[in-house]
């Protein structure tokens, strides 16, 4: 779909060696970073501490969500609108839902430690892990496709806008970015579904059977990414251009491309990565609206429905999964900080 190398370099005329050089330098930084850690002898304790924090955070999330969830009115029963009250009470008793919430909490934690996420209420006692395993791949696919496509286009547009600051090209990319961000995804999705799906009849207006079915949902998701990435890259690159080391680089007589790509783009990527972390999780856990309109059997429909139907076990399962992904992405972003920007390595080492 997209030539990754080509976009990263931005210009096919660039000498391949230069691309390789950037790569090598990134590798060097990683290597050095871990060297420093090894040298100070605390890479093991760093990881261990990080792991403890990780579990602590997860436990906090579980606890807060569990008790908040039980504040939601109503029960997880699906026929609640018509269920006679005494029968309802009896079924709740059978499920153990009549016990005090702290007791239920203790029981849940016990099961969780044994790796048992429980059975869903709204999906007829199917296991929560099975439901997540079934919903996640679709969300992951459209999310990643949207992210990669959107990210590449965004970097390209942002870089062009920054280099051509103040020209019509800059304004044009601003408008493209704004268009992407100013039309809600359900409007976009409905628009695509009707005009591409029905009027042109190129792709299916909805459904989930082949790769072709994933194009429109991914495209709808990518607009937000394009907009965000473009804005951040442009802003950060302008920031970097005004730094002294850029002047130094120019003064050294380095070529414009080298300056832009080796110095400016990489420094601009840092804050972009910061926002992309959570955004990635949002994207790969799915967008409710896009999944709904294109009938993608994904996670977010599962998640929102579980909350709407008080499906306690499914709420907990999806929340834990979501929290886990989020924290992993934060961890990865923290590591990427070090790789992309060696300056914060020193500060990062304090951890």
């Amino acid at each position: 779909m997209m030539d990754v190398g080509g976009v990263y370099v931005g210009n096919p005329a660039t000498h391949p060696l230069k691309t390789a050089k950037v790569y090598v330098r990134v590798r060097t930084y990683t290597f050095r970073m871990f060297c420093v850690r090894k040298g100070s002898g605390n890479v093991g304790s760093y990881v261990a501490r990080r792991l403890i924090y990780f579990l602590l955070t997860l436990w906090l999330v579980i606890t807060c969500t569990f008790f908040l969830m039980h504040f939601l009115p109503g029960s997880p029963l699906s026929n609640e609108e018509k269920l006679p009250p005494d029968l309802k009470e009896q079924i709740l008793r059978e499920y153990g839902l009549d016990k005090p919430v702290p007791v239920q909490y203790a029981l849940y934690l016990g099961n969780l430690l044994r790796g048992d996420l429980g059975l869903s209420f709204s999906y007829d006692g199917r296991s929560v892990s099975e439901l997540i395993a079934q919903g996640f791949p679709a969300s992951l696919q459209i999310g990643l496709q949207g992210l990669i496509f959107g990210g590449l286009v965004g970097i390209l547009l942002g870089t062009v806008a920054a280099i051509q600051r103040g020209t019509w090209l800059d304004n044009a990319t601003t408008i493209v970015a704004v268009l992407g961000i100013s039309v809600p995804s359900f409007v976009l999705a409905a628009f695509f579904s009707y005009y591409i799906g029905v009027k042109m009849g190129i792709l299916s207006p909805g459904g989930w059977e082949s790769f072709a079915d994933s194009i429109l949902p991914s495209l709808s998701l990518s607009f937000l990414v394009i907009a965000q990435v473009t804005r951040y890259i442009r802003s950060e690159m302008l920031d970097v251009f005004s730094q002294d080391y850029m002047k130094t680089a120019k003064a050294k007589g380095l070529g414009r491309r080298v300056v832009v790509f080796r110095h400016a783009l990489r420094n601009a990527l840092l804050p972009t990565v910061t926002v992309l972390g959570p955004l990635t999780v949002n994207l790969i856990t799915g967008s409710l609206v896009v999944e709904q309109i294109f009938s993608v059997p994904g996670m977010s429909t599962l998640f929102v429905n579980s909350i709407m139907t008080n499906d306690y076990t499914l709420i907990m399962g999806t929340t834990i999964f979501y929290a886990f992904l989020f924290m992993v992405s934060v961890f990865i972003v923290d590591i990427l900080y070090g790789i992309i920007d060696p300056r914060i390595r020193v500060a990062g080492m304090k951890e």
Partner: protein
Amino acid sequence: MRKRAAVSLAVIWVLSTLLTACGGLQSQGNVDERGAQGPQVLQLMTNNEPGDLDSATSSDVISGTILNNVMEGLMRLDKDDKPQPAIASSYEVSEDKKTYTFTLRDAKWSDGEPVKAQDFEYAWKRALDPKTKSEYAYILYPIKNAEKFNKGKAKASDVGVRALDDTTLEVKLEEPIPYFLSLTTFSTYLPQRKDIVEKFGGDYAKEPDKMVYNGPFVLDKWAHEQNLQLKKNENYWDRNTVFLEEVKIDIIKDTSTALNLYTSDQKDVTMLDKAFAEAFQSSPEFTTVTGSTVQYIQFNTENSFLANTKIRKAISLAIDRESMVKLILKDGSQPAGGFVPPAILGYNESFRKQAREYQQFQPAEAKQLFKLGMEELGIDSPPTLTLLSYNDERKDVAVVLKDQLEKNLGLKVKVNPQPLKQKIDLETKGEFDLSFSGWKADYNDPMTFLDMWVTNGAFNTGKWSNKKYDELIQKSKGNPDFKKRINDLIEAERILLEDGVAIAPVYYKNQAYLVKPHVKNLEFHSIGPEYTLKETYIEKRK
């Protein structure tokens, strides 16, 4: 001689074609006679994953519809929603109307095993077992000792269902009821195989290969949240009337996407949202299916303002139901002057045909009554009322109701749309003034609507109470004289709406569909499952 024979043949041919075109032909004929042509594959859609295909615990319409096509109970609904013998070939009713004896025909499960009376006994008792946690167990309560067993106050062997032998099932009821046969068409009343249920345990009915079927179709594939595929059941006793080889049901959640798939010819049938109904109203593909749901406003009579009957009546008379239905709903829904929808049977015909219409739009009288009511209460200006509502498409109706009450009565109304669970919670706690609600029939009898409103009834959250009404309902629950019973129920509805004004009915909900012209004999139901595909076939596509 020969010529005359030819002419009469031609006449028969024309007649039968006409009858087929009207969908009225019930013949057991072969494909050619019906005009079925091309691959017999039907493309359907549904808006959600079936929640539960275990008939003992299933409670949603989507699962009920699938079950209706892959399973078969003692009786099956025909296209007029009348129960017809299915797995039971015949039945006898005792003098006191409290004992039914069903004789089963020679039918087979999809694995070749015979369908036995024990399969029914097992399934019903399993649904009633408190351990099964069935949320629809109450639908079996008319059976003797069923409720007691379900609540742990009786043993399984006390329940009034018993297989006398492999082909005879005896059912004893608590009270004589006119709708027992139609109950036996519902999913909770379907048979289940003990060996299969016990073999798969918690996984029973979770996947297509973890259950067996005795209906016209079998579930062939089930990609969760994506689609279901039905295939003709070669072991079905009446397989010769089944034409469809395959039915594909895609799960499409968004109504406009569903419409997009339909108009791009990928699907044969679609439910039509009210938003699109107008654009297709004159299309020959447009049909509306009478439903068994009534939408109404419930008054909280514990609110001192709404405790006044004149005020309640004024509010009901100020609702312009005609224009609501014509201009907002557009899906064939009908203005409701009563509470029991037209699809519900009274004595041998629609209850609505026997009962009167009570509340119509009378703005002048409404204003008058409203003034009188305020005088009785001794207040000059009405308080602002909150109108609790669903947060789905029905909130549009709430918005119009608000406007009508403000315009016609000068009554200030605030709409409070809430998700279903929250709405039920607020209602149960009595935290509402007006509540826009819906009630769908559980079974084909006015009782499913009228017994809600007895004093302290679980769903009578407006706390309306009328002694005469309670007596009539109580009496009708066990009245063996079904004609007299209906007259009592008609009187009860009159008290509910004319004297008491416990509620203001707004409309009977119908559902609009688009059906491609090549789809024939697709039978939609007003009550219970959405449709039956048993005799559906595909005519030549255009």
